[in-house]
């Protein structure tokens, strides 16, 4: 049982690392945010879950569950708020991007 | 735990250096809050004992074990109140900085010459 928990924790840590690497490598803000949000969310969930089944043995399983629920709810909301703010103040997308519907639509709104 | 003491002193050192050399008032207040954190680290690390654990009695720490394993609760209590006071003092300093900006339209310390000697 402890072995399974430790392996889950290791996977979580690897996802955290990949998220950090994504934040470090990606070319612009939005892509960084993509890597950062998803990988750190699943990474921390797996990390804490592995710790819970490895050591605490049900004593604080519920507390880890609450923590996981909080992370799942709060993390996307804060990312969304940040992405919206960044787009509003005009952070550029990278040159490799294909299209930007939002910019087109908000300019149309301004013209009216 | 000697390491944490050294880190705490290094933080105090950096904070004092920042408070003395920075020209911007907000930066000086940031230096003050760094000094605050450093002092808290030093106080707590001096109160630590070997293999110490938190002084909270539950399933993993029985009443009888508390004397031999738990850390000294007094520095924790002191630092806890000091942090809350630190927030109030920081807020008061920031309000003063804002009022100074309202008067002079600048945050640079060299524009405030009334108290120069």
């Amino acid at each position, binding site marked *: 049982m402890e072995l399974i928990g430790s392996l889950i924790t290791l996977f979580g840590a690897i996802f*955290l690392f990949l998220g950090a690497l994504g934040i470090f490598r990606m070319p612009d803000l939005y892509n960084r945010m993509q890597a950062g949000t998803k990988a750190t969310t699943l990474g921390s969930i797996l990390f804490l879950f592995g710790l819970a089944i490895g050591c605490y043995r049900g004593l604080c399983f519920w507390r880890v569950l609450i923590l996981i629920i909080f992370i799942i709810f709060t993390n996307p909301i804060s990312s969304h708020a940040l992405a919206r703010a960044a787009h509003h103040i005009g952070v550029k997308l990278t040159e490799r991007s294909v299209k930007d519907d939002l910019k087109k639509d908000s300019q149309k709104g301004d013209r009216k | 735990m000697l390491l944490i003491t050294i880190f705490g002193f290094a933080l105090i050192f950096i904070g004092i250096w920042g408070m003395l050399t920075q020209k911007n008032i907000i930066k000086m207040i940031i230096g003050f809050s760094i000094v605050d954190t450093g002092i808290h680290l030093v106080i707590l690390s001096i109160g630590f004992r070997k293999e110490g654990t938190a002084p909270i009695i539950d399933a993993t720490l029985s009443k009888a074990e508390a004397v031999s394993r738990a850390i000294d609760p007094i520095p924790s209590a002191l630092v806890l109140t000091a942090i809350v006071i630190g927030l109030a003092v920081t807020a008061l300093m920031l309000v003063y900085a804002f009022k100074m900006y309202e008067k002079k339209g600048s945050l640079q310390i060299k524009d405030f010459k009334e108290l120069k000697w």
Partner: protein
Amino acid sequence: MSAIIYHIAAIVSLIALFLTFLRLILGPDLPNRTVALDAMTIITISVIGFIGFLTKRVIYLDVAIVYGLISFIGIVALARYLERGI
């Protein structure tokens, strides 16, 4: 065996903390630094859980919950500051 794997996982997460900190240093502008701060708080929550595991005290997880709540509000405050909302 399992203890070693736990420790390796902790070291990997510390490296992740270091990488996000590099983004905090390099980050060309404010939103990038905020993204780095966001990732850093979540990795720190994991490290807090690991410390609770090392010292075998369940109560340390309360700190992690408080941490998650407050850092969420801090990030939202930064975002609203950026878009001139407060």
